[in-house]
């Protein structure tokens, strides 16, 4: 060991210009990576968030599609008991409706189509002499949505030519269904918010645990002149890597779940469900979920570390 003269660090070198970060700084805190619980907690959270968000967006699409299709749709029922009178009023109503400027399309639903619709409930007897009297139906498509004002105008136009006509907006029948779907959308949104909160809480716990187990190292870096920001950045980076790994795994699990659920719902073949698919923008939102998760995790880790460091001198 030489004792002549210690080596000199040049004054210009000692001036800090490089950021204390990257692998060199990360090495101060031992990294568990996939051996630790953090990535797997994040994977589960991200997978559940992907499923909840996809469900919420599918329900939104379903509602929008159905409401769009039904918003201008009106059903006119001719309730006359006598078949000849019913047919006469239906013809007169069709002509009267066709002259209205707000009507963009209409058709009398053929008797065969009605019989086919009712057959599962009434059987073949609905078509014979002993048939239950079925009203004549006219499907009307209005320009814009079927407001109360529009419906009143239709009723006024039909009063003289088809006194047995009853006018209803089709969307009104599905209002309870839309209400239930809306409740499910809010539930999906609440689930996403709760999962984000739980993820942040898990990161908070992980960051506190990491700070506790590395307290000696933190104190050394502090006493060597390390700033809170430098130390917080180390934990932020570490948690960020864990969250990114967990996010990738979670997204993969979520996509598999969506694929299975999608194929099951597609097999239902229901007209209503056909609107419940995901659009390109929805897939972008789903792909962004892991990134948002990583951002929340890193922000939480930084705030947790800074709060803990402020308690040190």
């Amino acid at each position, binding site marked *: 060991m030489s*004792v002549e003269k*210690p080596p000199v*660090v040049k004054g210009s070198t000692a001036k800090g210009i490089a950021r*204390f970060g990257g692998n060199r700084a990360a*090495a101060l805190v031992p990294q568990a990576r996939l051996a630790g619980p953090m990535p797997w907690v994040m994977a589960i959270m991200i997978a559940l968030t992907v499923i909840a968000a996809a469900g919420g967006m599918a329900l939104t699409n379903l509602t929008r599609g159905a409401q769009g299709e039904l918003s201008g749709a009106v059903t006119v029922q001719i309730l006359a008991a006598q078949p000849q009178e019913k047919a006469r009023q239906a013809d007169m109503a069709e002509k009267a409706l066709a002259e209205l400027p707000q009507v963009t399309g209409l058709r009398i639903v053929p008797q065969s189509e009605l019989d086919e619709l009712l057959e599962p409930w009434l059987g073949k007897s609905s078509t014979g002499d002993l048939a239950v009297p079925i009203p004549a139906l006219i499907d009307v498509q209005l320009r814009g949505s079927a407001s109360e004002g529009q419906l009143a105008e239709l009723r006024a136009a039909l009063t003289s030519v088809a006194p047995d006509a009853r006018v209803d907006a089709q969307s009104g029948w599905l209002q309870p269904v839309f209400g239930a779907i809306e409740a499910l959308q809010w539930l999906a949104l609440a689930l996403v918010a709760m999962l984000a909160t739980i993820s942040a809480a898990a990161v908070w716990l992980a960051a506190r645990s990491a700070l506790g187990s590395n307290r000696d190292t933190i104190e*050394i*870096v502090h*006493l060597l*002149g390390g700033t809170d920001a430098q130390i917080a950045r180390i934990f932020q980076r570490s948690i960020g890597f864990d969250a990114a790994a967990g996010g990738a795994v979670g997204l993969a699990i979520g996509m598999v779940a969506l694929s299975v659920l999608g194929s099951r719902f597609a097999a239902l073949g229901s007209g209503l469900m056909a609107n419940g698919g995901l659009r390109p923008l929805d897939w972008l939102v789903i792909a962004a979920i892991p990134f948002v998760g990583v951002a929340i995790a890193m922000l939480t880790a930084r705030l947790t570390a800074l709060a803990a460091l402020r308690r040190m001198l």
Partner: protein
Amino acid sequence: MIERARDIVTFDNVGLRYGTDREVLSDVSFTLHPGSFYFLTGASGAGKTSLLKLLYLAQRPSRGVIRLFGTDTVTLPRKRLPAFRRRLGVVFQDFRLVPHLSAYDNVALPLRVSGVREGDIAKPVNDMLEWVGLSHRREARPATLSGGERQRVAIARAVIGRPDMLLADEPTGNVDPEMALKLLRLFEALNRLGTTVVVATHDVHLLRKVSGSMIMRLDKGRLSDPTGALRYPPRRENAG
């Protein structure tokens, strides 16, 4: 910006207590002059480590005023403390090396914290390891080093940034007499380059081995300065 001052440290009626216990340091007043060599002595429990903690800004006093490099560090916002700590080198009694880093990375740590570029780190760190005779152990983890080797890594880490003041807490407590003398010569060499050195020790044999050194003696938390040399240090021609 930290102002340059003639007196590197000034303590004025400083007291320190932990919690509600009695004061471990009472009415401590002294001044440290740039470029001087001080021994801080006293029996175990006299308050040497507590005094050093106040000096290396690990603790705030319960009362009194501490001026470091001309700035009152008692009321200084904590976000400004790192800049002061970077001007200090500390050799802890228990070394406090980062256990999962190599000797090289432990010595490099102050430079990295100070924002020195990676390319500018290798030479001074290798030179410093050579200076303390540990070039061949640069990749060794602290757990595989002997007590003396760890001590030298801790010293290399403390002086790598050319601190204005070096504080050493019982630096010879874990080494044999021969190594203790070598370490003392290292501190003297640094002192000759202008670094103020404060060595806390209970080894009275060391005190005679550095000519021109001043002695601060702590007894039950009180500093004895019978000659007044600490509070009113003599002017030194080569200091500053």
